[in-house]
């Protein structure tokens, strides 16, 4: 355990190069808390403006703070802080030596850190007065660069979250201790809850990324997605397809923490363990089918509204199962009223207010009354504050593990009391305000709402005080807290038959030598921090500053290539392989065959991107036909199909060559393998050249109605993936030429093959939908005008 107390953050070298899951977890927690303080300060300023201190900010700044408060709390505070907690506890809970890819989680962390910097720097660069939902046309017609920075930070944090989600998934699937089975009654409840969260992250965040890219394209290249021939209703659909699962991404880990804390503090096994575990997955599943409830007051068909109302109300069922089981666990328990427990109990209590108001909002007639009012705000603040309670419960519960010290019991309870009073006092008036019809996002408001706003502001001081007390408590406890007597089991859960952590499977210390599985590696941090530089490069290119933009992206690519070279081609890989013959052998063998599974999950996430793009095409087309009655749009000549057929033949034949190459690889005929692999690369390059030729000669511009916009979006996305596949194959070739591509790297080759097949399969859909108008043909066959 002595390594846990190593002060990695005292030295910037160790800080940048750590890949240890506990240390990355703690970094996540600190960074997320800085985001909390900044986002909380934004909220406090907004609160002062609304109650008693009118005029302390301009409307411009006020609405920028609205945007940043929402985005920072929902994307840059809660998911990262739970990712941090999971980084720390999840491997220990399942008895894993570390996360599946220690370097990738470091990369995900530094990308998150760099996107956080980007988000807050938007305040210095400009204003983003949008609201966190970024609804167009406002997010398009406001030319401020602050808006671009915010959108890019959101896209970047989305990518970081997906990467870390796949990493966690592989950890849960592959690195469990043999005693931890993948069953409802064996896997810890936090892990079940986090597993559900991961599944949501992988599905929900890619649509947000593609939505963000569509916004940027419309802002800078005048594409027509949301304005002009496009439809502003597309964005709420894309956004809330991400946005609703996102709120379950926030709440599910909180459920997990509470399910871990309550039984140990009530000193009673959790009641209905399997039901709680299963309900997490059920919530994740249902949450994909509820997004329309954010748009009940827009022109959607009543039948669709009702279907989504039913699914939304159905979410209350698995959530109710959890609440009843927690309460049943408390029944006849010997409850220890210590800080983690009081926070968990407050979670259950306050969450019920948030949950019930949510069920009311799901009813369409009620939503017509309170849509967009303070009632909605009250509802989701009563959902997110319990999440913060659960989070604090988790942090206090695992604090002795993290630091070896105990927090101040009294001080932490003072903080709890202040927070609870503050939360109830601040947000209960909002329910009344909402029923009185006060809309949200008002910089100024009529006098009749004033007294309730003042009450709300008054109680905000309790929240601020509670957070300050919490900070003081944590900081002083880290420095001079009472050392814990039993570091292995500070809460005595083991004695109750409910140990917090499972035994670790692999001992990776090499006979006391310094070289460990968590070898320090600075490259993830460098690449992660430069990811935002690459985003800014892309932004400059969109704005026509080509030389600097291409240079910034080139720097990022060089850094990536250097990392790959170091790990897979250079001296280091020989060392790693040498080591693998000893202690890492067993682990490495498990990891090798897994590259395929990991790539399949990655492809699943990519499929969501393409799914979103295709759905956007269908949506825009239906909307256009309904308004203007023709397709293709007036003044557009469809793209010629003859060249694309020839082009497709090259791409499809490359699928056969790579499969043949792979079969030679399995027969260990590396010469033929390399020849066929390079043939595949050449076919891919021919295809890309053909596409570029088509872009140059078709005479279609991206700003030429929704036809041009969706055409370039979908084919451009596909082209980007072809280039990714080509890079993948170039890496395989490089490794083969260096002689580091032995048969033990089978997974790598397998992954490259599967990825290339995926690119080809997507092309079938692109051909059918974009070029050959399959949807139109089917619709005509069914007699629908489309």
């Amino acid at each position, binding site marked *: 355990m002595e390594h846990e107390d190593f002060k990695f953050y005292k030295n910037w070298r160790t800080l940048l190069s750590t890949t240890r899951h506990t240390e990355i977890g703690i970094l996540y927690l600190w960074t997320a808390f800085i985001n909390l303080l900044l986002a909380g300060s934004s909220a406090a300023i907004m609160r002062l403006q609304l109650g008693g201190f009118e005029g302390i900010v301009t409307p411009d700044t006020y609405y920028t703070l*609205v945007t940043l408060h929402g985005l920072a709390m929902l994307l840059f505070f809660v998911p990262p802080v739970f990712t941090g907690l999971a980084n720390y506890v999840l491997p220990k809970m399942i008895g894993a030596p570390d996360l599946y890819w220690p370097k990738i989680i470091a990369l995900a962390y530094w990308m998150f850190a760099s996107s956080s910097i980007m988000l807050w720097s938007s305040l210095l660069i400009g204003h983003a007065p949008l609201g966190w939902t970024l609804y167009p046309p406002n997010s398009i017609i406001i030319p401020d660069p602050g808006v671009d920075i915010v959108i890019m930070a959101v896209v970047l944090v989305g990518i970081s979250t997906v990467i870390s989600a796949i990493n966690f998934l592989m950890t849960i699937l592959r690195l469990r201790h043999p005693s931890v*089975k993948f069953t409802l009654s064996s896997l810890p409840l936090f892990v079940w809850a986090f597993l559900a969260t991961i599944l949501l992250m992988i599905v929900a965040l890619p649509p947000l990324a593609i939505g963000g890219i569509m916004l940027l394209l419309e802002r800078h290249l005048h594409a027509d997605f949301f304005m002009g021939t496009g439809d502003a209703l597309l964005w709420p659909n894309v956004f809330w397809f991400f946005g609703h699962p996102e709120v379950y991404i926030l709440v599910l880990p909180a459920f997990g923490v509470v399910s871990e804390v309550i039984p140990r503090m009530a000193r009673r096994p959790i009641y209905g363990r399997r039901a709680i575990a299963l309900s997490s997955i059920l919530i994740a599943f249902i949450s994909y089918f509820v997004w329309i409830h954010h*748009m009940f007051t*827009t022109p959607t068909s009543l*039948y669709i509204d009702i279907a989504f*109302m039913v699914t939304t109300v159905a979410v209350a069922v698995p959530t109710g199962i959890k609440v009843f089981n927690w309460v049943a666990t408390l029944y006849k328990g010997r409850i220890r009223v210590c800080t983690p427990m009081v926070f968990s109990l407050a979670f259950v209590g306050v969450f019920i207010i948030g949950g019930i108001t949510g069920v009311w909002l799901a009813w369409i007639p009620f939503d017509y*009354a309170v849509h967009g009012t303070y009632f909605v705000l009250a509802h989701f603040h009563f959902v997110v504050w319990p999440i913060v309670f659960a989070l604090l419960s988790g942090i206090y519960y695992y604090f002795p593990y993290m630091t070896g010290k105990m927090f101040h019991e009294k001080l932490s309870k003072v903080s709890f009391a202040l927070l609870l009073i503050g939360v109830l006092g601040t947000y209960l008036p909002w329910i009344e305000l909402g029923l*009185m019809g006060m809309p949200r996002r008002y910089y100024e408001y009529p006098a009749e709402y004033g007294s309730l706003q003042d009450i709300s502001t008054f109680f905000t001081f309790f929240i601020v005080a509670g957070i300050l007390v919490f900070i003081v408590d944590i900081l002083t406890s880290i420095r001079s807290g009472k050392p814990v007597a039993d570091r292995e089991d500070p809460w005595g859960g083991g004695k109750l038959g409910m*140990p917090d952590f499972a035994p670790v499977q692999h001992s990776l210390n090499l006979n006391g030598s310094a070289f460990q599985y968590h070898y320090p590696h600075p490259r993830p941090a460098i690449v992660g921090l430069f990811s935002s530089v690459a985003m800014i490069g892309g932004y400059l290119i969109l704005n026509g500053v080509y030389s600097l933009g291409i240079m910034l992206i080139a720097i990022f690519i060089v850094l990536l290539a250097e990392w790959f070279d170091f790990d897979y081609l250079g001296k280091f890989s020989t060392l790693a392989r040498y080591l693998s013959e000893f202690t890492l052998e067993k682990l490495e063998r498990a990891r090798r065959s897994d590259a395929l599974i990991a790539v399949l999950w990655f492809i699943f996430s990519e499929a969501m991107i393409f799914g979103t793009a295709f759905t956007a095409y269908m949506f825009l087309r239906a909307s256009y036909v309904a308004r203007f009655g023709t397709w293709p749009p007036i003044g557009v000549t469809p793209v010629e199909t003859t060249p694309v057929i020839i082009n497709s033949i090259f791409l499809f034949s490359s699928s056969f060559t790579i499969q043949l190459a792979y079969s030679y690889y399995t027969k260990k005929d590396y010469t033929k393998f390399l020849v066929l692999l390079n043939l595949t690369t050449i076919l891919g390059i021919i295809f890309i050249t053909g596409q570029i030729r088509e872009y140059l000669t078709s005479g279609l511009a991206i700003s030429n109605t929704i036809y041009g916009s969706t055409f370039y979006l979908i084919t451009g996305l596909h082209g980007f993936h072809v280039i990714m596949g080509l890079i993948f194959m170039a890496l395989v070739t490089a490794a083969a030429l260096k002689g580091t591509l032995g048969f033990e790297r089978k997974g790598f080759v397998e992954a490259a093959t599967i990825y290339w097949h995926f690119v080809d399969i997507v092309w079938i859909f692109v051909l059918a939908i974009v070029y050959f108008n399959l949807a139109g043909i089917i619709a005509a066959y069914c007699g629908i005008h489309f």
Partner: protein
Amino acid sequence: MPLIPKPVEEWYKEFSKQEKIWIAIALAVAIILAATTLSWPLIDPKHEVPSSAREFNPTAYKEIANNFSSIYNGKLVPPNTDIYIAAQQYFWSISTLVLKKGVDYRFHLGSLDVIHGFTIVGNGTVYSIMVMPGMEYVFTMNFKNAGTYYVICSEYCGYGHGSMRMVIEVVA
């Protein structure tokens, strides 16, 4: 030490009698709720969703709405007259609408620039519609109580979002 407090056979435990009763009650409630919810449009077919997606020309619509406003602003709108309202950053095309109590009025509503929210507040009523640009909304409204209602913007539209107001006077 295994993490599992009890052996895995716990899986195969039969449901107890109480559990079965609870499941039956929960299922029955779910079925009743689902049946009533899904049959709602059949029971209440008059419920109208304020939507009509049709070709919408902002400049032409603005002219119609301004015409309407210049005739009827502050004056009683006679029954069987269509009401045209345009939303724009940051005002409604008409500032005072006078309507008669208990009469069906046909409203036309459209946004000329960004998303606005059309929310009626007053006399204990709150009702809101999200006004997407590029569409003309047509719906019927009937005010059952006389008095003063306010129309405010409930969907963030820009700096002046809070100052977008109009008055509906309903007279007996």
